[in-house]
């Protein structure tokens, strides 16, 4: 029910968000009306010169105070709990989500589908299919915002953040950048194009790039010499990357981390930061040699050699090495 607004409810989470919003709004309206009516009534009835009875006025009452302390507190806790469930759902992409990679830069959005299709300032998605966006920025903080889906997530340089949605209406829905990022922040917009699944397949075929993401990543893996150490014939003792994606990795300091998108990116750019147990710290850093798109391609390649179909559930904000 979004009869009061022209904003469509175009995702599965949108009605849930709206329900909470309208409930809270209704509560707010009730409180505002209540207080405003009380103020008006009192102002009229007790204006100077009115004949109203003013005897027996209370200057304090612990009972009354506790009432209007505890009732709001209880309401707040109730609303908070409700909000918690909706929020948890917003942050938990389903197992069968398809990943699309998004790279933000001043002042455009670049999207890459696993099949190699690339888009600028647009994102084609199929109806009814959970889509998970893994996003990073090439420069400053941006924010991926689709009002019709009720989703927003800041996109940061140097790390991956994620956002997921399932579109429930066919059409074009505006995409905005919602974190001020400089000169053309206001023009950094685009469209999410939701298509029927069959149309979407046709679109994918029609727009496929020369290579899938994984194939491109495989080429980079060879051209940048990764296979020299990590390949099966390597003379150097380096971790085997086949099937690495999504597995737990043991580090020299005794902790374990999960090999998700972020771990792989860090391992390529800052290899000495988290050393793998049992291996010498001899991997060189590729910082400055690979673009964000290259990194995503390599990740795509490693994913393709792994049995894990998707990002492990705890990516980015919830992974073990997150600091907050």
């Amino acid at each position, binding site marked *: 029910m979004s009869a009061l607004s022209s904003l469509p409810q175009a995702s599965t989470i949108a009605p849930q968000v709206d329900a909470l919003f309208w409930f809270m709004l209704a509560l707010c309206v009730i409180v505002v009306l209540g207080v405003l009516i009380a103020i008006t009534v009192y102002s009229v009835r007790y204006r100077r010169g009115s004949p109203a009875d003013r005897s027996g006025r209370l200057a304090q009452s612990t009972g009354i105070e506790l009432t209007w302390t505890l009732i709001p507190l209880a309401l707040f806790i109730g609303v908070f709990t409700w909000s918690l469930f909706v929020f948890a759902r917003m942050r938990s992409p389903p197992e069968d989500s398809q990943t699309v990679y998004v790279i933000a830069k001043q002042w455009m959005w670049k999207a890459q589908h696993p099949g190699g299709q690339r888009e600028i300032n647009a994102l084609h998605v199929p109806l009814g299919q959970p889509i998970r966006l893994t996003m990073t920025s090439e420069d400053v903080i941006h924010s991926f915002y689709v009002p019709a889906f009720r989703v927003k997530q800041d996109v940061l340089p140097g790390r991956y953040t994620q956002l997921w949605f399932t579109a429930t209406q066919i059409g074009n829905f505006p995409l905005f950048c919602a974190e001020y990022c400089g000169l053309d922040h206001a023009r950094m917009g685009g469209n999410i194009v939701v298509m029927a699944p069959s149309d979407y397949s046709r679109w994918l075929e029609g727009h496929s790039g020369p290579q899938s993401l994984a194939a491109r990543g495989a080429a980079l893996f060879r051209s940048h010499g990764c296979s020299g150490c990590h390949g099966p014939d390597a003379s150097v003792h380096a971790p085997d990357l086949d099937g690495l994606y999504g597995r737990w990795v043991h580090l020299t*300091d005794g902790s374990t981390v999960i090999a998700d998108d972020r771990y792989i990116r860090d391992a390529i750019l*800052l*290899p*000495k*930061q988290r*050393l793998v147990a049992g291996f010498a*710290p001899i991997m060189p850093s590729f910082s400055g040699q690979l673009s964000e798109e290259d990194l995503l391609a390599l990740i795509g390649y490693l994913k393709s050699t792994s049995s894990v179909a998707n990002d492990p559930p705890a990516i980015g904000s919830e992974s073990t090495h997150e*600091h907050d």
Partner: protein
Amino acid sequence: MNATVAEADWRANGVQVEEQYDDAAQQREAATLGMWVFIATEVLFFGVLFASYTICRILFPQGFAVASRHTDMVLGTAETAVLLISSCLIALGARAVKLDQNRLAAGLLAGTAALGLAFLVMHGFEYHKEYAEHLIPGVDFMQRGPQAQAVELFFCLYYCITGFHSLHVAIGVSVILVLVVRVLRGSYGSQRYTTPELTALYWHLVDIVWIFVYPLIYLVGRAG
């Protein structure tokens, strides 16, 4: 309303009670509370740097260990000893003022200032050494190797923390030197000791900040 009390204070003790205060005792209480509030602000001020340091160290434990080994532990330890002794001296000096032992007090305060200066000189040597070793991030930083980025972060924090701390030491030394002169002139005594006492409090803060700085900067990764 209280002119008579204030005048009595002035005549008896040479205490100049400002007009917003009823008597010298109230003035002293206010000044003391003021200094404690100021110390609280300094804790929050340095707290930002300590918090940033903590987060960075959790992220880069090995890098910070490597970086810490580039600091001069001998000088750092000497500086710690110097500051601790100076705190002792200034505490004794403030006490001497209260006991009307002006010459002793002046000597102790001068000693504190001298030790403070010694601290600054030693730290100057440290900075010079770090400059020679190309350890100044952004300006002249030539560390290479696996932990280079973490080392650069460490040194960025190092210069911030020690820089602001040294600024506070320098201010303290200046104030103490002025105090020495005024103590010798007889401006303070058993009835007028607020300023030396609060200066000592400030100096203790400077010392305590350093006590946190020392292990965080100089002793990371030295145990093994």
